[in-house]
């Protein structure tokens, strides 16, 4: 699979990124199972990586006067999996939209450090976005949905078709290229959405509560799949969720947010080794980490909150 190769081999802005080990090429994606390389590229290396995203003092006040975000600072480094965890209405989705360039901050600055030329900030697939619902074009086949970013960039050839096929293989959807979205289950639709976000090999993958609308069983399966995907390809991920267990299971770092105004109140590393298996959910370390995150989240909730 030549999927991850091109963007990784590009020259970087920062010399430190040269220390990044080449991404392990797992045969056919998520189902790949054990990946020996993943264990020795744990948290220690990501801390020294070049930042992909720097958020400095970002605030957002809506036209209605609502202060959605008040001074958020966050740096995401290459290869990190950072969760934004917080109660409903704490502005985590707003923050994600600002990062994607879909919304402008009222104050502060949000900078992406990408390989693309300046001024071409988010265009041409350097950032992938997965919404809470799959957001597919119902009139297009699975393959055409995944090819959309290339169509928009007017750059669609045999190589791009191969990359789309590879992206679909990596989310275990090989053979569904010509299916229409309404023929798929909710979980499969979400996989298509993830494949579409990955197909351009983005420098930053943004996920906005992608599994919130799915049933528990599908959600657990997709958690595992996303974890495998990250362990094999090491994309830089910013993941919005309101599930403590999900964030601890998936992340290398968790930014806990509080509401009114939305701000980051705790920045907790998750020191659980990779690869993580489902069994880790009963391990003492995992449980302890969940308790720590829950405590931070509890402290972030307003006193006497009845919601």
């Amino acid at each position, binding site marked *: 699979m030549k999927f991850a190769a091109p963007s990784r081999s590009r020259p970087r802005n920062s010399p430190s990124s040269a220390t990044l080990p080449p991404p392990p090429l797992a045969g056919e994606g998520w189902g790949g199972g054990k990946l020996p390389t993943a264990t020795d590229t744990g948290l220690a290396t990501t801390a020294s990586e070049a930042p992909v995203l720097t958020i400095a003092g970002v605030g957002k006040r809506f036209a209605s006067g609502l202060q959605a975000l008040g001074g958020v600072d966050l740096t995401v480094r290459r290869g990190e999996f950072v969760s934004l965890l917080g109660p409903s209405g704490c502005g985590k989705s707003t923050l994600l939209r600002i990062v*994607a360039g879909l919304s402008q901050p009222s104050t502060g600055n949000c900078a992406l450090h990408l390989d693309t030329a300046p001024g071409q900030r988010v265009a041409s697939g350097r950032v992938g976005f997965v919404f809470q*619902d799959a957001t597919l*074009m*119902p009139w297009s086949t699975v393959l055409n949905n995944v090819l*959309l970013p290339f169509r928009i960039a007017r750059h669609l050839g045999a190589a791009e078709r191969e990359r789309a096929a590879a992206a679909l293989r990596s989310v275990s959807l090989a053979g569904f290229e010509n299916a*229409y979205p*309404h023929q798929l289950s909710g979980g499969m639709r979400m996989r298509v959405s993830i494949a579409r976000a990955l197909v351009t090999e983005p420098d930053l993958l943004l996920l906005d509560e992608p599994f919130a609308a799915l049933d528990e069983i599908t959600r657990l399966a997709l958690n595992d799949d996303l974890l495998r995907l990250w362990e094999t390809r090491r994309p830089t991920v910013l993941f919005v969720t309101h599930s403590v267990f999900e964030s601890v299971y998936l992340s290398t770092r968790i930014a806990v947010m509080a509401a009114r105004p939305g701000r980051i109140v705790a920045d907790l590393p998750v020191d659980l080794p990779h690869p993580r298996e489902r069994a880790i959910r009963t391990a003492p370390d995992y449980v302890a980490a969940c308790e720590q995150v829950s405590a931070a989240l509890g402290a972030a909730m307003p006193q006497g909150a009845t919601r």
Partner: protein
Amino acid sequence: MSRATRHRLLRIALPIVIGVLFLGAWEAIVRIEGIAPYILPAPSAVAVSLWTDGPSLFGSLLVTLRITLAALAAAALVGGGLALLFARSRVLELSLFPYAVILQVTPIVAIAPLIIIWVRQPFLALLVCAWIVAFFPIVSNTTVGLNSADRNLLALMRLYGATPGQVLRYVRLPTALPYFLAGLRISGGLALIGAVVAEFVAGTGGAETGLAFRILESGYRLAIPRLFAALFLLSVTGIAIYLVLDALSRRVLRNWHESVSAEEEE
């Protein structure tokens, strides 16, 4: 027999049974009571008239049909085009849409004489009348469709740096297609009504006469069976237009529109 097949069979069989019962009762009442054919002709008399006057009625039907289809095509083109302009420019929509509504709510019977005076060419005058009746559902439906694209999908297009033309082509037009086709189905029937009403007012479509004029003429001459035969042809035409447009929209939307696919999965 599965439930679905039985349901489909009943859906066809029940209306036919009702129709046959109705026609039988009609025939029986006319015969038993001895009602004169110039007051209420028996279905059999209508059938005979349909057979003997068939060729001349059919020629008139073609005239009416030509006006109807031309008006429908013009309505689809102008209606679709206006909707595209409206989607492109909010100012244009705000300034022009009220006038589309005014055209729609003005009874065609009231303005048809004016149009016939202004537009000298009879075929064109009738075409304009039928078009006025037919174009509104297409404009309004398509405008709604173009504006109801999935917001997240639009955000995604922005994220990937799509041009307005690409947004239109990849998201807005496909979203609007089912709305446009639904408008077209409504407009098909309206175009026929418009063509008939206009001809009633005009008296004649010039050298060629449409079905509406046949109905008027038959009324004057008390050739009531022929009047009924013409009415019958009009209804059949209306139903045929609807069925053709319905089949067209099913065919176009077969693969992806949820309302269609869900029905087929029943």
